[in-house]
């Protein structure tokens, strides 16, 4: 993907002899890399499994059902430790603990192999995240196609009942869990330092660690299918989770690992945004995308630990016979629901906010106007973030919780529409009397806003307790969250890819194929999910393999559209492979979208330390039409890096 030449900026770097010596480092094969990580993982699994057998083989439960959940869980956990150790992630902290003084080195390695090892450059981590997230997305999408194949008929069953719920669970968990960081991982990590004028992240080791946990979680989650699958869906409700076979351990461990990854990534971004802004980058000049990343990160830091606690409790119930969720021994079947949704609701805003961030970041560029009501936009995002912690019980409206809580939670949930509406206010204002450029990223932004509107409005139906009485647990909910998450978040994610790939990789994705991709995807997406609102309102619950015969027509339509949606994503894959790998590299414009953003004022691809000198920010990123000059100036004593930048 990256070749050795960088695109040289118009004004060449005079060569600063005072910069520290930058080294390439040892060869890929002589330092920790993914392969040593795999070895570490395998060894770790063996140790964990053996330990679990040694401890738990004689447990009554293990003897009775023949499955040693403890061995599998310990195996997964120690395998992850082994994987991380094999990658060399533990070297630095261990060295410090022992009392050595390891020196951090600048890593000027530009070889392709740097993407396959532990690397502290946030841009490398960003691209690692991007590749990984695309892999997880397509794997989860394939599971979805399996689900839709089964739902073609209410009577002919392709999959056995337990395989069906396991596949549904794999699809949902992989999408929701693995893709939580789909925008924050690739784009947050890559762009936040560039956008605030920083040369690094605050905690690069935490950031890289947060990435390398995700392949481990992915492998653990997929392996759950092999050991029997998990029957609870992505929501993991106990007590069914306690009853489940070994696949449930995979789900719980994977989710716990991803929760940890989220906390680490979150800390890093918040600290970076607060402390590493370049001089002149006041809070009112911080790009909306960075604000979205920061607020998302705060949500992750506060909500994900509750999830990790809940998965830990469920694992304990399953392995060492505690009874936290078992009513027969004093536990509660409500406890999991409350803990899980306390995380689960902020989780969906962890998904929505980065999407909004991309939308609000790109709209000014393609409207050639300032972001309308910038401060209100930030207030809106903060409002969404804060309110998201007070609404989780709307997932429990019919569960028998204290009835007087329901109007309260209905109130807070309805309230969230207000800050979410502010996002549309900003979009509308930015588009007012604009000079819209309908590029491929802009198409995806507009499509995403169209989809999210339908998703958000259906959310209002769900927040109304009596109307929720029909819709809860049905395909209406499914349509609601697919519209907001896939129609919104994923569309914005794809917009981000089309938009920032020229900066990250020095290549452009084909516009022609991109337009095909958009229209196919937009039409197929709506064709797939719009009928599901009706299907749910007509009485079909979620996660069922048998449904009323009368609904077969709609289900067949949806399944065929889902395959069309898969096809549109194949077009996307084709665009990615053709434009980024197969085609010869063409010289492209340094800043193809003529964006004012600070991230576009670096060479392509950016050097390890982003900016040769620390920029001085003199104006905001959205000053289109005001006649302001570039966003930042670079010190006159070193060479400038941006085309046409003025020096003073």
């Amino acid at each position: 993907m990256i070749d050795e030449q960088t695109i040289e900026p118009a004004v060449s770097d005079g060569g600063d002899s005072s910069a520290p010596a930058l080294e390439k480092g040892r060869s890929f094969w002589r330092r920790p890399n993914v392969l040593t990580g795999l070895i570490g993982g395998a060894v770790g699994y063996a140790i964990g499994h053996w330990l679990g057998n040694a401890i738990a083989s004689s447990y009554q439960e293990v003897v009775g059902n023949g499955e040693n959940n403890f061995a599998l869980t310990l195996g997964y956990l120690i395998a992850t430790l082994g994987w991380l150790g094999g990658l060399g992630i533990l070297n630095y902290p261990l060295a410090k603990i022992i009392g050595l003084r390891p020196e951090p080195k600048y890593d000027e390695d530009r070889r392709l192999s740097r993407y396959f090892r532990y690397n502290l450059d946030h841009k490398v981590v960003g691209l690692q995240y991007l590749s990984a997230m695309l892999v997880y997305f397509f794997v989860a999408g394939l599971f979805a196609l399996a689900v839709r194949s089964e739902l073609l008929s209410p009577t002919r069953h392709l999959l056995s009942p337990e395989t069906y719920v396991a596949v549904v669970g794999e699809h949902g968990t992989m999408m929701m869990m693995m893709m939580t960081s789909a925008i924050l991982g690739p784009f947050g990590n890559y762009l936040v330092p560039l956008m605030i004028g920083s040369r690094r992240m605050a905690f690069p080791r935490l950031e890289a660690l947060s990435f390398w946990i995700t392949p481990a979680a992915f492998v653990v989650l997929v392996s759950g299918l092999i050991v029997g699958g998990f029957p609870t869906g992505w929501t993991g409700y106990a007590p069914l989770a306690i009853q489940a076979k070994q696949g449930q351990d995979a789900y719980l461990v994977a989710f716990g690992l991803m929760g940890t990854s989220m906390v680490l990534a979150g800390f890093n971004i918040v600290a970076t945004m607060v402390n590493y802004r370049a001089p002149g980058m006041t809070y009112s000049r911080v790009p909306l995308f960075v604000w979205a990343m920061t607020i998302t990160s705060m949500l992750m830091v506060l909500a994900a630990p509750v999830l990790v606690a809940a998965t830990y409790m469920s694992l304990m119930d399953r392995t060492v016979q505690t009874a936290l969720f078992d009513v027969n021994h004093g536990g509660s079947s409500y406890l999991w629901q409350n803990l899980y949704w306390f995380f689960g609701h902020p989780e969906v805003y962890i998904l929505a906010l980065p999407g909004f961030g991309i939308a609000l970041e790109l709209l000014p560029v393609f409207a050639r106007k300032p972001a309308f009501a910038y401060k209100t936009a930030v207030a809106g995002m903060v409002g969404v973030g804060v309110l998201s912690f007070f609404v989780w019980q709307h997932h429990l409206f019919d569960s028998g919780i204290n009835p007087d809580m329901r109007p309260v939670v209905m109130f807070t949930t309805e309230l969230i529409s207000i800050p979410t509406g502010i996002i549309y206010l900003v979009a509308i204002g930015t588009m007012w009397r604009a000079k819209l450029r309908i590029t491929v990223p802009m198409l995806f932004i507009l499509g995403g806003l169209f989809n999210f509107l339908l998703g958000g409005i259906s959310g209002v139906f769900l927040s109304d307790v009596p109307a929720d009485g029909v819709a809860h647990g049905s395909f209406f909910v499914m349509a609601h969250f697919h519209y907001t998450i896939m129609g919104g978040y994923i569309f914005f994610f794809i917009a981000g890819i089309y938009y920032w790939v020229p900066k990250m990789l020095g290549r452009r994705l084909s516009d022609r194929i991109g337009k095909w991709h958009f229209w196919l995807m937009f039409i197929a997406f709506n064709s797939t999910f719009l009928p599901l609102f009706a299907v749910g309102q007509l009485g079909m619950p979620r996660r069922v393999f048998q449904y009323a015969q009368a609904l077969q027509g709609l289900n067949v339509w949806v399944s065929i559209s889902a395959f069309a949606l898969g096809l549109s994503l194949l077009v996307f894959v084709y665009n990615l492979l053709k434009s980024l790998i197969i085609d010869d590299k063409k010289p492209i414009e340094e800043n193809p979208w003529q964006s004012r953003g600070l991230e576009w004022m670096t060479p392509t691809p950016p050097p390890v330390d982003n900016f040769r000198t620390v920029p001085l920010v003199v104006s905001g990123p959205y000053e289109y039409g005001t006649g302001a000059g570039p966003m930042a100036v670079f010190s006159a004593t070193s060479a400038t890096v941006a085309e046409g930048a003025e020096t003073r």
Partner: protein
Amino acid sequence: MTKAQKTIGVLVPLALLLALVIWTFTWLIGYPPTVQAATTTPGEVNVTMQTVGTIGTGPHPEWVSYLIQQPDGSWTHSTVLQVPAHTKVHMTIQQYDTGSSLRNPLMNQVLGITDAANNGQPYGLWTDVIGHTFTIPELGISVPLPGIPDDSTNMCSVAPCAKSFDHNTVTFTFTTQGAGTYTWQCFVPCGVAYLAGFGGPMATLGYMNGILKVVA
């Protein structure tokens, strides 16, 4: 690298991935085999099944299980049964397992069937320990399969079980209506060491729950 080399470099892994996807999908749609009931006289079929305390083989040897007998007399480890529509189905179930009480004692009673018999004696209600039940909730049919005593000395431990081991033989007949697909299951909490007794084999096709295909 030339464009052609890059194209091959991309297509080969893609082809391998596609093969992996197809292989995974084939594995996912793997089902226990469908056993077709043998037609004796027109309008009537016979089905013989057995329930065992431990299957003894396969990935879960300690799980309870159903087995169905093929028309040629061999036993198949499956619970997917196919019978014709509008037909009398004469079921014979050999029950080789010990029993317990039911989570829901309603299933102590024979439901939806008028001529159930246990070891030749007609019965409508069983108050003793029950090994398993044969229940098709959608058709309203439920037959308790009495369990053998815990202190039995001649217990079968590996399926398929021969009639020389202690067992109870339950016979009953039901009539199928139009074509359709029905799930059936056991209602005794016999998933030992799973919460409420309904995990493990109870939740796995081929062991304690099954599919009845009624074909026109």
